[in-house]
């Protein structure tokens, strides 16, 4: 995947045919992270902690629903992916790119959690762990491609 053009309002990426298939297969895995995955605080006895935790879980669940809605809209929009001679051109606004990064990282971190949150990169691969390892690595690859676009020339 390459960034082919960027303006203030839009990024355009070129994806090979196989890359597009991989990205779509990956995005279908969203959401991956278990709900209420993280505590609001590690400090016990923090005033209002329980209420705050409830509000945080609710806000994250709402965010997830919104990301899912945007993802479905993106996948259903025929103008997003335009076929080219050698692959596809994907157009994204800066806002799209931002939530797509959240979606990809949910898949990456969620797959890592499903793998048992290993400290080391090396994971024992078998029929059960291979799909999660694939999702973790592939979402990281796309994430880095999109991140490069947000940074512009150094």
């Amino acid at each position, binding site marked *: 995947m390459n960034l082919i053009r960027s303006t203030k309002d839009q990024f355009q990426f070129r994806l090979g045919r196989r890359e597009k298939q991989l990205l779509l297969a990956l995005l279908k895995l969203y959401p991956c992270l278990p709900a209420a995955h*993280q505590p609001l605080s*590690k400090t016990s006895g*923090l005033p*209002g902690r329980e209420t705050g935790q409830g509000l945080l879980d609710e806000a994250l669940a709402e965010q997830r629903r919104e990301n899912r809605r945007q993802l479905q809209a993106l996948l259903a929009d025929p103008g997003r992916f335009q076929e080219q001679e050698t692959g596809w051109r994907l157009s994204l606004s800066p806002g799209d790119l931002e939530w797509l990064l*959240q979606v990809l990282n949910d898949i990456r971190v969620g797959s890592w959690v499903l793998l048992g*949150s290993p*400290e*080391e990169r090396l994971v024992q691969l078998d029929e059960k762990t291979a799909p999660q390892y694939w999702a973790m690595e592939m979402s990281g690859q796309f994430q880095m491609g999109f*991140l490069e676009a947000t940074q512009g020339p150094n």
Partner: protein
Amino acid sequence: MVVCWNDPVNYMEYVTHVFQVVFGWARPKAEFHMLQVHEQGKSVLARESMERAEAYVHQLQKYSLHATMERDQ
């Protein structure tokens, strides 16, 4: 205070980007805190009222970073 904790899964580039977006920091400051997380296991990102700290934790967790709100000792 808002604390971000180290984990072995989030990319350094990604963490830097999230700090820039959530706090509006310039890249050098975002990188400084990212490296603190990476090398020291955590970084205090903000000392704010409880309400604002909760809002920051929500923003950071939205990006799946390991962030929490802790009492300032």
